[in-house]
């Protein structure tokens, strides 16, 4: 097990290095010169060149990348072009709220999808299964902002149950004290995931139900409930864990949309605002962070699955 984790850690580190290179070079390719962005359009090319020279932006891109890497290792993500602030400070200010939203969305999605998927598999082609499948198809086909808008229209404007804007508090913990304001954002974020997760869980549970060990468990005389909880559940969740790991980029994208829709001050909103301001150090940092989270997500998923299913170590 330790060997397996070590192995995966090394691979993850390499992937991270790859990501940093790809992201850095691609952004370098598309962006204007930093001097132009920082100083604005009206400044003379000479002034821009001088700025770039002063800050080392005229060096070969490989050198700039290595320099960036070195500073990255010291926790220095650079300085925002437009906000008079370090990127790391800005990210630290917003990360908590985004994490709160993401985690809440993920937990709600899993809490609904796992039991639902298993129930669908057990009562295959029954009423619940067909209804849930139909709803999943609809949810999957609905862009999340449209769903969010529909929720706002119904629950906020018509029924006036929940506010249309998310909690504006700056402390991630205060968000917890205002659950009504978070209900719609979390539901919007979770709904799309539920559609994907439940269908995935359903087919994985169906796979497992067809395995011989389920039949053996029944032959032992276990009541169906125990067959499901003691034998099926754990095995049927493995593929879902892996899926969640690989879906981190999609989940983060969902955050951007939901934060924008509900005006929730998190990393997603920061990213969107930076887009308009062409604030590349921030864009670069957040994209890299997305990559890091994806790699960590995959790593966690793999380790979790390997810990639960000892066959993995042998197979690889």
């Amino acid at each position: 097990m330790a060997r397996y984790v070590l192995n995966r850690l090394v691979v993850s580190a390499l992937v991270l290095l790859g990501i940093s290179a790809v992201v850095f070079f691609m952004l370098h390719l598309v962006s204007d010169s930093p001097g132009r962005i920082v100083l604005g359009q009206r400044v003379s090319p000479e002034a821009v060149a001088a700025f770039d020279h002063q800050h080392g932006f005229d060096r070969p891109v490989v050198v700039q990348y290595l320099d960036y890497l070195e500073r990255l290792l010291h926790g220095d993500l650079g300085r925002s072009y437009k906000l008079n602030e370090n990127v790391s400070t800005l990210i630290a200010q917003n990360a908590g709220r985004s994490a709160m939203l993401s985690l809440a969305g993920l937990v709600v999605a899993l809490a609904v999808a796992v039991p639902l998927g298993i129930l669908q598999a057990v009562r295959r082609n029954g009423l619940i299964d067909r209804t849930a499948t139909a709803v999943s198809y609809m949810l999957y086909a609905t862009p999340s902002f449209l769903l969010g808008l529909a929720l706002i229209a119904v629950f906020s404007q018509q029924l006036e149950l929940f506010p249309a804007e998310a909690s504006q508090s700056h402390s991630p913990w205060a968000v917890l004290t205002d659950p009504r304001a978070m209900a719609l954002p979390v539901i919007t974020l979770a709904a799309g995931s539920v559609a994907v997760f439940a269908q995935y869980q359903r087919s994985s549970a169906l796979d497992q139900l067809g395995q011989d060990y389920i039949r053996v468990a029944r032959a032992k005389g276990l009541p169906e409930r125990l067959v499901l909880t003691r034998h099926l559940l754990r095995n049927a969740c493995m593929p879902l864990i892996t899926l969640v790991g690989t879906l981190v980029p999609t989940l983060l994208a969902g955050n951007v949309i939901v934060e924008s829709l509900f005006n929730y001050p998190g990393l997603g909103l920061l990213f969107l605002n930076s887009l308009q301001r062409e604030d590349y150090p921030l864009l670069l940092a957040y994209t890299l962070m997305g990559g890091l989270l994806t790699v960590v997500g995959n790593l966690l998923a793999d380790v979790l699955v390997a810990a639960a299913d000892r066959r993995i170590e042998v197979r690889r």
Partner: protein
Amino acid sequence: MDSRKNLTVHGLSVEIRRGDRLVRPVADVTFELGRGETLGIVGETGSGKSMTGLAVMGMLPAGGRVTGGSIELGGRDLLTADPRRYRGREIAMVFQDSLTSLNPTKRIVDQVAEPVRLHRGASRRAARDRAREMLARVGVRRDGYPHQLSGGQRQRVMIAMALVCEPEVVIADEPTTALDVTVQAEILDLLDELRAQRGLSMILITHDMGVIAQRADRVAVMYAGRLAESAPTAEIFERTRHRYTRALLSSIPTLAQDRGEELFSIPGSPPDLARPEPGCPFAPRCDAASDRCRAELPPFTGTFACWHPVDGPVASADRGRFQRGETGETLLRVVDLVREHPTGRRTVKAVSGISFEVAAGETFGLVGESGCGKSSLGRLLVGLDRPDRGEIVFAGERVTRPRRAVQMMFQDSGAALDPRMRIGRILREPLAIHDVGDRRERVRRLLDDVGLPESVLDRYPYELSGGQRQRVGLARALALDPRVLVADEPVSALDVSIRSQVLNLMRRVQAERGLSAVVISHDLAVVRYLADRVGVMYLGKLVETGTTEEVFGAPAHPYTAGLLAAVPEGGRTGTPVRGEPPSPVDPPSGCRFRTRCALATDKCAQVEPPMTSLTGGHQVACHYPLQEGRDG
């Protein structure tokens, strides 16, 4: 009610509804199981034998229900009882071993302990102790996860799990089908021993007549969901009454039969249970069927259900005989072949220095247990894989890639035929590859040769039965007029009654064409039936070769002798090989068989025995051969 009768099944009928399809897999089945008795239920795929077992357990698949009859345990009606009250406590079940027969993410001890906690309300600790005790009893001494166990050990765990709550009846459904013959013997011995010790009653469900002959007190033969015949074991074999039973028994190749004699073969295939016909279900395949058989269902008399019962097995005179084929010059020569497959950090030593020759018109049989490297060898022979060392010489030329004159017949034609091609295109493919003209006419002749109607040409593989597909596989291999046919487990995927059709066909075609063949199989009787000469493989090495008569009649290697003794066939003696083969990643030093050999000495561990001649072509690689060499 006779109190000695433990389990009584009377007139049991089951139906399964799937969508708009209604199937009756079990119809009017009656049997009684006495205390301490073993009842063998034998039949082919779809005969309803497994479904009968599941019905007793109250474990019919979704959409299935019992539509008639009764199941009683010690006078108690099980059909009205809650199955969970007797399942695993009074009646337990052992299934066929598969990779997934145990929960992959739970410790073995906990899986065995589970019924104890459930049925006896034992504490976790007490249940674990009891489980360990039971595991030790069945010979599994290590704990861990299922993937760490071999097939034989997994099956032992299954038995421990079934017996841990001391049930009265155990239903074993094909308990040894997926296992090697040596392991099979051990598992059956274990089951027998436990049964005798605990006074258990057992229902042994299998397709293997040999297993039934050795282990059952009484036999019930099922066909198309119905009982064909039911009687004490000796009677079934000596005074067979039902025509299906007789046909079945005569169609099985055995180690004792006359090899020159054609196997009896039952034409056609079993009926479709979704479309029941009136009359006896066996009538369409029965050579004695009369109008009455086709119109009226024969009632079950208590021992058989047949309008025209018989006495005893088919007389030899009824069967055709094969001409002994001429064999010529050496056609295929295998010299010191070595093939090792690296897998990660380790290397599987699949083939470790094998030499043999096959003459024109001769069939060479390769036998061995799973993992002995025989399939790797087969792939090398047809050029699908290249040896690391050594060479294969065909008609004086080295084989390094596939060649037209050496063709292959695969085990499972379901997988070996492209699912997206019609049979016509499949059969034309080899001709098209080599740009042979007149393809349609040639394909027509091929179909004729393998006994298939022209109507199959427009079908897809999945529309054919297993036997038909295997015929297509043979026809395709023959399309290029090869001189050598390599057949890897040609009949293992087929049911008994279909098997003899294909075996006879292979022999006939081979004799007609003067074809050389290499037949690879784990089934000793199949190899004995098809092969003129035999090589016995163990962990990547040949341990014995000789003519079929020599090797099967007077085995010289302890492994060959042990393998033969393990075959479940009435009346054979000798000590079967014990245990399971070591891993081919790290084979034992010296003689690779020494770890399982009763005769092994220090010499065997240090010196690898060379292949030495005994008489004529009979060779053995053993320091202490069981047969004396004449020129030694």
